[in-house]
C-alpha cells in the first residue's frame, strides 16, 4: 500500500515550527506583521480571543474517563476525549460498518454515508432484538399515530386509505402476474 503524505508528517510540531519561524525567519521577511490589526476579528464577541489557540497543546486536561467500552473516535483527533458518552457502543453488523466509517476523516462522504448506512441497518437490528425479547412493534404509539388520530384525523385517514389502496393495488398486480405465469 502506498504511504500517503499524511502518514509521514511529523505530528505535534506545528507550534515548534511556528516558534522557530517567529524567532528566526520573520525578521528576514519584508513587511512581516506590519498590517496586523487586533481589531480585525470577525469572531468577536462570540470568541474572546486570548491567544489560547497558540497554546493548543498546553492546557489543563481533566482525568481520562476509564475506557471500559469501545469508543470510536474521529481520525482527525489523536485519541478519545477526556470524557465521552456511553449511550450505545457499536455492536453487530452496524458496529462493524461504523468501525469502517471511522477510518475515514469527517471530510469524506465515505465516513458520513457509511454511518447513515450503519444507522439504517441498526434499525433492523433493533427490530430483530425487540422480537427476540418478545417486544412487538407498536406503530400506533411509536410512530405517533395516536397523536395524528387525535389532532389530524381527516388527513390521517386520507393518508392511511391512500397507503392501503396502493398496497392492495400492488398485491393485486402481483397476483395477476403470478396467475399469467
Amino acid at each position, binding site marked *: 500500500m502506498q504511504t500517503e503524505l499524511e502518514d509521514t508528517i511529523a505530528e505535534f510540531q506545528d507550534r515548534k515550527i511556528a516558534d522557530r519561524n517567529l524567532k528566526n525567519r520573520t525578521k528576514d521577511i519584508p513587511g512581516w506583521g506590519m498590517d496586523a490589526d487586533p481589531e480585525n476579528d*470577525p469572531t468577536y464577541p*462570540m*470568541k*474572546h*480571543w486570548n491567544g*489560547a*489557540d497558540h*497554546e493548543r497543546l498546553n*492546557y*489543563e*486536561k*481533566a*482525568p481520562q*474517563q*476509564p475506557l471500559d467500552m469501545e*469508543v*470510536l*473516535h*474521529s481520525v*482527525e*483527533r489523536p*485519541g*478519545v*476525549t*477526556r*470524557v*465521552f*458518552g*456511553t*449511550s*450505545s457502543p*457499536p455492536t453487530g453488523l*452496524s458496529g462493524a460498518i*461504523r468501525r469502517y466509517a471511522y477510518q475515514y476523516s*469527517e*471530510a469524506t*462522504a465515505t*465516513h*458520513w*454515508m457509511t*454511518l*447513515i448506512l*450503519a*444507522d*439504517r441497518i*441498526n*434499525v433492523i437490528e*433493533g*427490530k430483530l432484538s*425487540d422480537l427476540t425479547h418478545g417486544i412487538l412493534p407498536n406503530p400506533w*404509539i*411509536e*410512530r*405517533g399515530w*395516536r*397523536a*395524528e388520530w*387525535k*389532532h*389530524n384525523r381527516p388527513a390521517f385517514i386520507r393518508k392511511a386509505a391512500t397507503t392501503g389502496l396502493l398496497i392492495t393495488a400492488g398485491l393485486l398486480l402481483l397476483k395477476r402476474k403470478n396467475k399469467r405465469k
Partner: protein
Amino acid sequence: MLAMNFRGPRQIRLDRNKPEPEIKHPYDAIVRVTRSLICGSDLHLYHGRVPDTRVGMTFGHEFTGVVEAVGSGVQKLKVGDHVLVPFNVACGSCPHCKQELYGNCNESNPQATAVGGFFGYAHTGGGYDGGQAEYVRVPYADVSPTIIPAGMDLENAVLLTDVVPTGYQAAEQGGIHKGDTVVVFGAGPVGLMAARFAWFFGAARVIVIDHVDYRLEFARKFAFAEAYNYRDMKDPVLFVKKATDYFGADVCIDAVGCDASGSALQDITGKGLLLQAGSATALHWAINSVKKGGIVSIIGVYGPPWNLAPIGSLMNKGITIRANQASVKRLLPKLIDHIMSGRINPKEMITHRIPLEDVSDAYRMFSSKLDHIIKPLLIPPRANAA
C-alpha cells in the same frame, strides 16, 4: 427509569427499565430531570438526518434537574442543587472553552471534530444520553450547569438551556446596527427568539418568513415582527428585495436548517435522496436576500457532509457568514438578567406540557405541527420527588 428510546426514523418508544446513569468520571454529576424540552433540532434526529444516531439512544439537550450525586472532583455543585444544564458539554479548560466557545469544546466529543459534545445528540454529538428521561449523567458538572436563580420560573429556566441563548446568538452573530432591517427565515422557537432579540440590538424592522400561519401569527405577537407566509409569494427573495428598496436586508438569519421546505430541488436532493445534508432552502434565500456586504447568520442546524448553497453570490456580494452553536455558558448572565428584569418571558412559547410517558406523541405533534404547537415541554413523573 423512564427514558425516551430511539428505535429508528420517526419511531420512538418509552423505555420503562432503562438503567439509571452512573458516575463515570470524577467531574460527573447525576441529575434527576425536572423539566425537559423537545428542540427543533431533535427533529433532525427524529427524521433520521443526523449520521451515527444509534438505536437505543435517549435524546434531549434542554433540561433542568436536581443534583442527586456528584463525582469526587466536583466542587461547585452539591446534592440537592436545582440546576439548568446547558446543552453544550464543555470542559472549561481547552483553548476553545478558554475563549468562551463552549459549543466547540475539544474534550467532550471523541466521534467528531466538526462539532462539540452535546447531550442526547447522536454519537456525532459525543454519544451522551440526554434529558428526555428521569435521570441524566452530566459530565464536567462544575463548568456549565448553573443553579437556577431564586424566583426564576422553572419553565423560563429550562428555556435558558438552549433556545433562548441560541436565538440570542443568532441575532448577535448578525452584527446588527441600530436602524437595520433584519429578516429571519423560520418561525420556530429559535427563529422567534432571534426575531425578538434582533430588537435588543437596535433593529428598526424585523421580518419573519415561514409557511405555518399559526406560527407567523405568534411571531407578530411574541416577537413584534412583520410576518409573512412564503407560500403566498412567488419568490421569497424577490419579496425581500422589494420590501427593502431593492437593496437587500441588512442582516438575514437562517433559523431553519436542514429540514427546510420551499424548494422542490432542495427537498428531493436533500430530504428524499439524501444527496445533501437535508434541504438548504433557507440558507439559499438568506444569501440571496441579504444586501451586498451584508451578514448572514446561520443558527439552523445542518448535518454533514455538505449542502447546496450559492457560494458564488456569497463571494461576489461580499457577504460575511457568521455561524456557530450557541455558547450557552457565555450568554447566561446576560440572559438571566433579561428574564429576571422582565424584558423577556420566553415561557410564553411553551404551548404544550406533556408527561414524559407520552414522548412519542409529543415528537409526532411537534414534527407534524399539530394542535398549533410551538414548543413542547416534557414532565417526568419523578420531577417533583423529594
